[in-house]
């Protein structure tokens, strides 16, 4: 029987973990190992993926992957090798005695003035970035979603200028499953930090210590920071720190990064071990009596065999030996072994597999988890089910329930959009627009009284105030949208959305995680593109980035509102809704086309940890909003200001730099006129003015309507010139054509110039074809 066949609420013991390659290794690293007890919590509303409870935490995986894991229903047997809990008191280093457990003189002090570099390593969502912010005083964004940090970030520890600490992406093991894990592993191996700070989530200590053991194997000075100890002790748990220190052979410091507790002590220990280069005292976790000692003998034999190669290639011996036994091809290549040695190694590993009754990867994972069980048995009093977990379960019963998940999601998103566009954001937007209008009026009056030249007056009022002002008025909407999205992310809800939307998105070649950027895309494409950094594979990331512009952003709303009210007043809401749905439909078609051509293959497996719901920290939310507002204001007063000035100039002057009386003679009309033949098939109404408006929309979508109004003013406005069919064509074109310059810049930043250019051209082509289709359909129906 496989894990897939278990019913919700049913427990089983894992017998065999099937599959192959990196994904299988990832399962083993996440604690899905033979002998572990697993309970199916629930299935997603669409029947796939499933939520499991293993080693005290929640993990989600797809049924297809669950089908590879063989289980026996019932509870797992307690491990036999666990020794009884010791009550012996152990000496703890006193004040000023950091590193007492290291024999005196065993360290190798660095010369005075050497820069102390640290790497902050830990599981995803264990609080690394929160700790990084506390240590450095930085303001990095933290979220309650696994994988918020995708780039490494560095800073100096507060009050210690000659230090550099690097916040690495969250990883579960030193086996390179995702690109982030490779980044972290390479950083530790190649950049050789002077010490590691390993952050361990004390509420989920078993799985977190798995990474700790692999870090210890690297022989780099290390301190373990036991985070979330407040939550642990608050729920009746505790950790015997002294015993854990003696078992792991490194200093262990209990902390609460969120509450800034224990940080001072952590810094002291970290500085000490880095300065005196005190390596972990123990690396040998394979007991000679552990399941017959097969893994122990194998590891030691391999260590002896590769000792010279490890030294030559600069790899830590114990780490290299473990990876060789696991069959890591990258490390094998790095060691440069002789064929004879490779054969000998293979024989040693085969013998171990035979004696242990498990394959190489499973045997290594089992050895590590056996040691972890021993450590936990001796040092950890597990907390009762935490308040946070009970609360999460109650919320999940509704928010990810079979019948309630999708309606709740739709209701939450509708509420977010309603509050953003109709209540809070709209109210604030009106206030800001009124403020800008007042400022514009005051400036106009002042310029009149100062007899300012009409041309310069036009530059200030019609150019700068109109252009920058109209964009600036969208600031409240954008900030409000981000407020809600950040609340959803920080609370842990977005991780649930990814869980229950996975099946739907897999049909178009994406994984559940892509839902986050796509949802943000309805607000603004720029942050949506940025948020794709949380996606684990390049394929998914590229595909999601190329699809986000199809999710109609808020800046296009003025265009929809204007045309729908003018040409389809009876069904304006239907037209606007239809445009949103058309965007989604074209996005789906594009995804299917991508899946068949550019991005063949399957989306990454959906193996994700579901964090408990948490109350978002007001500081973090306010910080994020400030960053977004600052960024938006910067853009308004830089790119949009320059663009406005350029359009104003081109519209008011001819090639001889004379002021024009008729805009048909302007530089803008001449340049835009070159593009007219391209748009001729779309209808006679598509003249240089429409093209100019659409080009100005490339700078900021909001300016399409104002430019159209300005250019058609002399002919009695747009309604007097356009037919309903032309209006429909322009609406569809506006929906689908290239996103604004800021969005293209962010795509360029994430994917490079080639992809950004390709996206602009493809979207313009799609928009052109769709507008032509609208015209043809209209003609068929006699429009």
């Amino acid at each position, binding site marked *: 029987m496989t894990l897939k066949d278990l019913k919700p609420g049913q427990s089983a013991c894992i017998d065999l973990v099937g599959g192959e390659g990196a994904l299988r290794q990832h399962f083993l690293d996440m604690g899905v190992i033979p002998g572990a007890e697993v309970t199916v919590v629930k299935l997603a509303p669409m029947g796939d993926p499933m939520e499991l409870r293993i080693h005290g935490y929640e993990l989600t995986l797809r049924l297809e992957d669950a089908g590879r894991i063989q289980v026996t229903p019932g509870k797992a047997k307690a491990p036999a090798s666990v020794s009884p809990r010791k009550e012996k008191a152990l000496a703890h280093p006193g004040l000023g005695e950091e590193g007492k457990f290291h024999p005196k003189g065993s360290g190798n002090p660095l010369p005075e003035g050497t820069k102390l570099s640290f790497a902050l390593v830990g599981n995803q969502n264990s609080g690394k970035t929160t700790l990084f912010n506390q240590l450095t005083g930085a303001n990095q964004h933290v979220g309650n979603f696994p994988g918020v940090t995708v780039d490494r970030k560095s*800073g100096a520890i507060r009050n210690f200028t000659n230090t550099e600490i690097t916040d690495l992406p969250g990883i579960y093991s030193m086996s390179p499953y995702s690109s982030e894990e490779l980044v972290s592993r390479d950083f530790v191996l190649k950049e050789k930090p002077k010490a590691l700070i390993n952050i361990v989530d004390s509420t989920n200590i078993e799985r977190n210590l798995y990474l700790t053991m692999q870090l210890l194997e690297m022989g780099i000075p290390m301190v373990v920071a036991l985070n979330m100890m407040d939550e642990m002790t608050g729920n009746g748990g505790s950790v015997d720190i002294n015993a854990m220190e003696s078992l792991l052979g490194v200093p262990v410091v209990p902390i609460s990064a969120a509450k800034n507790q224990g940080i001072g002590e952590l810094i002291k220990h970290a500085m000490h071990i880095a300065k005196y280069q005190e390596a972990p005292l123990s690396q040998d976790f394979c007991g000679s009596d552990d399941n017959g000692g097969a893994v122990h003998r194998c590891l030691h034999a391999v260590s002896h065999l590769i000792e010279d190669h490890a030294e030559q290639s600069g790899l830590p011996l114990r780490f290299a030996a473990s990876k060789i036994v696991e069959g890591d091809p990258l490390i094998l290549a790095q060691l440069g072994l002789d064929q004879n040695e490779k054969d000998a190694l293979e024989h040693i590993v085969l013998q171990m597999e035979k004696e242990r009754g498990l394959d190489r990867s499973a045997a290594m994972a089992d050895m590590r988890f056996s040691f972890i069980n021993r450590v936990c048995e001796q040092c950890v009093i597990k907390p009762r089910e935490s308040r946070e977990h009970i609360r999460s379960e109650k919320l999940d019963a509704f928010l990810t329930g079979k019948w309630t998940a999708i309606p709740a999601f739709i209701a939450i998103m509708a509420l977010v959009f309603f509050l953003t566009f109709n209540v809070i954001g709209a109210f604030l937007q009106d206030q800001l627009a009124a403020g800008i209008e007042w400022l514009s009026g005051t400036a106009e009056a002042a310029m009149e009284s100062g007899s*300012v030249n009409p041309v310069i007056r036009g530059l200030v009022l019609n150019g700068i105030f109109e252009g920058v002002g109209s964009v600036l008025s969208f600031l409240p909407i954008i900030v409000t949208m981000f407020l809600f999205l950040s609340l959803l992310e920080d609370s842990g809800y977005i991780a649930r959305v990814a869980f229950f939307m996975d099946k739907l998105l897999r049909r178009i070649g994406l994984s559940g995680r892509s839902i986050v950027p796509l949802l943000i895309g309805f607000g603004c494409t720029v942050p949506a*593109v*940025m948020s794709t950094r949380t996606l684990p594979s390049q394929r998914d990331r590229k595909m999601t980035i190329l699809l986000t512009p199809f999710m109609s952003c808020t800046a296009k709303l003025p265009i929809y509102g204007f045309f729908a009210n003018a040409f389809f007043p009876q069904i304006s809401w239907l037209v606007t809704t239809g445009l949103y749905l058309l965007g989604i439909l074209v996005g789906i078609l594009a995804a299917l086309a991508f899946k068949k051509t550019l991005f063949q293959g399957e989306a990454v497996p959906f193996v994700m940890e579901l964090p408990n719901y948490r109350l978002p920290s007001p500081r973090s939310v306010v910080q994020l909003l400030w960053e977004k507002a600052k960024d938006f204001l910067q853009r308004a007063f*830089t790119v949009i200001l320059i663009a406005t000035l350029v359009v104003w100039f081109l519209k008011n002057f001819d090639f001889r730099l004379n002021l024009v009386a008729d805009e048909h003679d302007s530089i803008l009309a001449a340049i835009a006129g070159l593009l007219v033949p391209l748009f001729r098939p779309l209808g006679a109404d598509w003249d240089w003015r429409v093209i100019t408006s659409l080009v100005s929309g490339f700078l900021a979508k909001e300016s399409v309507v104002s430019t159209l109004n300005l250019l058609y003013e002399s002919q009695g406005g747009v309604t007097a010139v356009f037919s309903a069919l032309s209006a429909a064509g322009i609406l569809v074109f506006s929906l689908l054509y290239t996103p604004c310059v*800021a969005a293209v810049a962010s795509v360029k*930043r994430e994917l490079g110039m080639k992809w950004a250019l390709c996206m602009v051209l493809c979207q313009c082509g799609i928009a052109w074809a769709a507008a032509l289709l609208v015209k043809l359909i209209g003609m068929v129906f006699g429009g």
Partner: protein
Amino acid sequence: MHLNLWDGLILLLVAASAALALRHIGRHKDAGGCGGDCASCACACNRRQKR
């Protein structure tokens, strides 16, 4: 076109603003596409700030 003192001042102000904006764009090559994510930004201002 006749310009008075106010015209000159306004033009100077607009030119200065445009120069500052261009300088900013030149430094932040992604034109704000970083979304305020300063730590991962390699622009000149940020490097100076870090120093």
